[in-house]
Structures are given as C-alpha cells and as structure tokens.
C-alpha cells in the first residue's frame, strides 16, 4: 500500500470521528430542548427558564 493510502485514511478517520462528535452534540441538544419545551407546554416548569 502506498503512503497516500495511509495519509488519506488517517485524515478521513479523524474527520469522521470529529463529525460524529458534532452530530451527536447537535442531536442530543435538540432532543433536550424539545423535551423541555414539551414539559413546559404541559405547565410543569416551576419557572420558565430557558437556555
């Protein structure tokens, strides 16, 4: 295998792992915001605090 293969593989894998971290962060954040909004719309919130 050529050196190019190892270099491209390294960069692709790094990009994939970091993209995974970002995607996970965005999806998780959206899920929590939605859950909080649902709870508050049912009037559960003690105070309407939002971040």
């Amino acid at each position, binding site marked *: *295998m050529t*050196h*190019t293969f*190892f*270099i491209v*593989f*390294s*960069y692709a*894998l*790094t990009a994939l*792992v*970091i993209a*995974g*971290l*970002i995607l*996970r*962060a965005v999806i*998780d*954040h959206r899920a*929590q*915001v939605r*859950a*909080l909004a649902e*709870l*508050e719309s*049912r009037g*559960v*919130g*003690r105070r309407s*605090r939002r*971040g």
Partner: protein
Amino acid sequence: MLKGRYIVRMIRELANPTRFMSLSGTLLPWVTGLAMLLLGLGLYMIWFVAPADYQQGEMVKIMYIHVPAAWLSLFFYMIMASSALGTLVWRHPLADVSQKAAAPIGAAFTLICLVTGSLWGKPMWGTYWQWDARLTSMLVMLLIYLGILALWRAIEEPNRAARAVSILTLVGAVNVPIVKFSVDWWNTLHQPASVFRLGGPTIHPSMLVPLLVMALAFTFIGVALHLSGIRTEILRRRVRTLTILEAERLDAQAA
C-alpha cells in the same frame, strides 16, 4: 487583594447554571468560528506550505493530526480530573456536568491518536502496533475513558454517578504523567518529546508552526464541543427534574 476577590466572585457567578447558559450561549459561536478558521489555516499550511520530511516524506502529514489528538487526550483528562476535584471537594454544581461532557470528547481524541499513530507506524516502523510504554499507556488511557463512560451510564442518579466517576477519574489520573514521561522513563520505539521539552522544540519552524496551528484548532474544536456538551447536560438535568416533578404531581392528583 481586590482582584483576588473579584476572581472568586467571577468563578462563583459562573457556577450558577443559568448564568453559565447565557454566557456560554454568547461564547459558543465565537469559539466555533475561531476553531473553523484555525482548522482552515492549519489544513492549508499542511497541504500547500509545509515541506515533506527528509526521512518520513509525506507521511509527516499524519503527525499534524496525531500529535494534537494526543495533547487533547491528556488535556481533556486534566479537565475531568479538576472537575472531579470540584465535585468531591467543593460540590460545585457545574463540576459534575463538566466531567460528564468531557469524557466522550477525550475518548474520541484518544482513539484518533491511537489509530493515526498506528497508520503512521505501519509504513514507518513496519508495524501497526508495538507493546512499548508510550503506546501501551495510551491504550490504557482509552480503556480508562471507556470505563468512565460506562460508569456514567451504570448509575442512574446523576449526583451519585458523579461521585463514583470522580473517584475513578482521580485514580486514573496516575496514568497522565505515565503517558507523558513514558518515553523518558523507558526505552520506547516511540520517539521522545520534540515540542514541550527542556531546551525548546527540535522541530524546524516550517513544520512547528502548522503543528501548533493544528493544536490550537483541535483545542478550540474540543472547547466548543465541551461547552455545547455542558449546555446539553444542564438541559438534560432540567428535563429530569421536571419529569420527576410532573410524576409527583400526577401521583398526588391520583391519591
């Protein structure tokens, strides 16, 4: 004296989750933007400016991601260890949350470090893996990160989980100096430090500058992910508290 008191007050105000949410909300886009800029600059320097190494040839390009990933692996462990102290000693409300948000990021960078190192090792050393002190201690680092992630999932109640994880994190911190100094303490196939060493870096500026730019870019990406992770974790805890409150209210109504 006055300044000291001001700093203490600042830290205390930051400890307030609501205050943290508004401050981090303003900070996050800037940190993310800076990360993207530095990453663009770093990649440009690596692919179009930096020379090939006289021994490694183009394989030196892997170093520009391998080395920053290794630094960040240790950096996030230090964040977790100091947050663990914050949890155990000061019961700092944000410390648990910071610990929990740092773990997956640190684990991911440790994985990047190990895999890119392995992909560099095959053509350069002739092997993907060698059980030398640096490589083995870094693998132990990944296992500690995975153990911490598993422990977070194993205990349901967040405060109890945080205390258990804190103890594991502080015990695991022994591995941080072992990773760093393994190349000095033992005879390793892995090369010794060439940037953070007494007597200054041994790398030529044409390669040192892109390496430092990439290290900064990775740091800002990591910090942005950490800030965002802390924010999500704060929201998750609010959701948890409100869900319990709702359940209690429904229980009271049914009774």
